[in-house]
């Protein structure tokens, strides 16, 4: 019988493997980022380049684009592992699936959520946001994008066995994204009107903690269901 592996070593192994996979397919990584930048840049052109409009709507626009960019990237989270049989090996590992799924979600966030956050100051400048607002926007994205990855993983796991997964993920996950969007963009707008943002940030933090604990459980259960029906 093989020795049961420690959870942290399994977590690190999956992390290393998925980071390696991500960097071997760099062009896939660029997709959501390019979408993010283009979607935000089109607003000044398509709606209005007025400073008054952009400064007011900017945070919301960046948040909506970040949400949609994350949504775009979700389908690939488990699909390639499902198609080449790696997912069977993961599910049949004696280690808890929770740790494996959490590692995969972390990699997803590192290669989509984190670059979005790093890009957001440039887009914030373009939207005439003040430096305080840009910092706050980065902070809300830092709390919010992990929630998007965590919750999105549930949708990705449920639809991994289906051919039309992409569309279904959006429908399943979008309602759960709405609160994050409202409080994420709302924080920056509240700060602009001189209100206290502590409550907003606390709520975003609560979303994050809740998703961190529950979403991998749900995603792991959803993966087992998807495997069963394939």
């Amino acid at each position, binding site marked *: *019988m*093989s*020795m*049961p*592996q420690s959870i942290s*070593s*399994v977590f690190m*192994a*999956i992390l*290393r*493997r998925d980071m*390696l*996979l991500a960097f*071997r*397919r760099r062009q896939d990584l660029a997709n959501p980022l390019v979408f993010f930048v283009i979607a935000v840049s089109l607003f000044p052109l398509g709606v209005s380049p007025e400073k008054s409009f952009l400064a007011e709507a900017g945070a919301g626009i960046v948040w909506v684009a970040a949400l949609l960019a994350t949504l775009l990237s979700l389908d690939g989270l488990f699909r*390639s592992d499902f*198609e*080449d*049989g*790696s*997912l*069977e*090996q*993961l*599910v*049949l*590992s*004696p*280690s808890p699936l929770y740790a*494996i799924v959490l590692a995969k979600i972390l990699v997803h966030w590192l290669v989509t959520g984190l670059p979005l956050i790093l890009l957001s100051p440039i887009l914030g400048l373009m939207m005439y946001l003040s430096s305080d607002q840009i910092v706050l926007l980065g902070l809300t994205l830092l709390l919010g994008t992990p929630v998007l990855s965590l919750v999105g993983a549930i949708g990705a796991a449920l639809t991994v066995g289906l051919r039309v997964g992409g569309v279904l993920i959006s429908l399943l996950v979008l309602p759960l994204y709405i609160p994050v969007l409202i409080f994420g963009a709302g924080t920056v707008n509240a700060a602009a009107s001189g209100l206290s943002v502590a409550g907003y940030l606390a709520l975003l933090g609560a979303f994050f903690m809740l998703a961190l604990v529950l979403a991998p459980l749900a995603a792991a259960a959803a993966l087992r269901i998807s*495997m*069963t029906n394939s």
Partner: protein
Amino acid sequence: MALLRVERLTCERDDRILFQDLSFEVGSGEVIQIEGPNGAGKTTLLKILGGLLQNWEGELYWKGQPMSEVRSEFLASLLYIGHKPGVKAVLSPLENLRAWSALHEPATDDKLMAALARVRLAGYEYVPCGSLSAGQQRRVALARLYLSQAPLWVLDEAFTAIDRSGVEQLEALLANKAQRGGAVIMTTHHALNLPGALRKIRLGKAQEAPEVLEEEDLL
């Protein structure tokens, strides 16, 4: 005591009964070949044994205890190589094996390299698997057999795309596994040359020869 006991296993898929009241035992030192025509449910049976499917009826026992109670112990004792072998095309054979071993069977890089050499992939350790042939990709998955200490191996079509000398080598490996007290459940369309240890379980109805048409029917 039998390692794995299957009792009155019944599986229905798409309104078709694949097998009904199937009972058998797998003891240590046995190699069991699941036989049957295409679509008879061989892969389904192996997936049920591995716990990958849930829509079936019957009982599974691992070392005499109900499977649901000893699931994690069973998983630590199982090596499953499915129809799709779980080899990443963009990773090299060594990286693939390393990722698998971290989850299932901790091993040093030296041991991984040795296992790859055993399946005649020496010199290909750092080449992306996507540029290897189908047989070589299958060998990357089969290298796990040289690392695994798990008492039960479940192999689905393990010999697909493997050349003749590779098959002979695997037969020797399976015979050795059986001698050391391990158990193997497998499907293959190859005629296995394993004197003594091999037992066959046949699924589905025996394929009937197509009726010969009378000459007047053809006219």
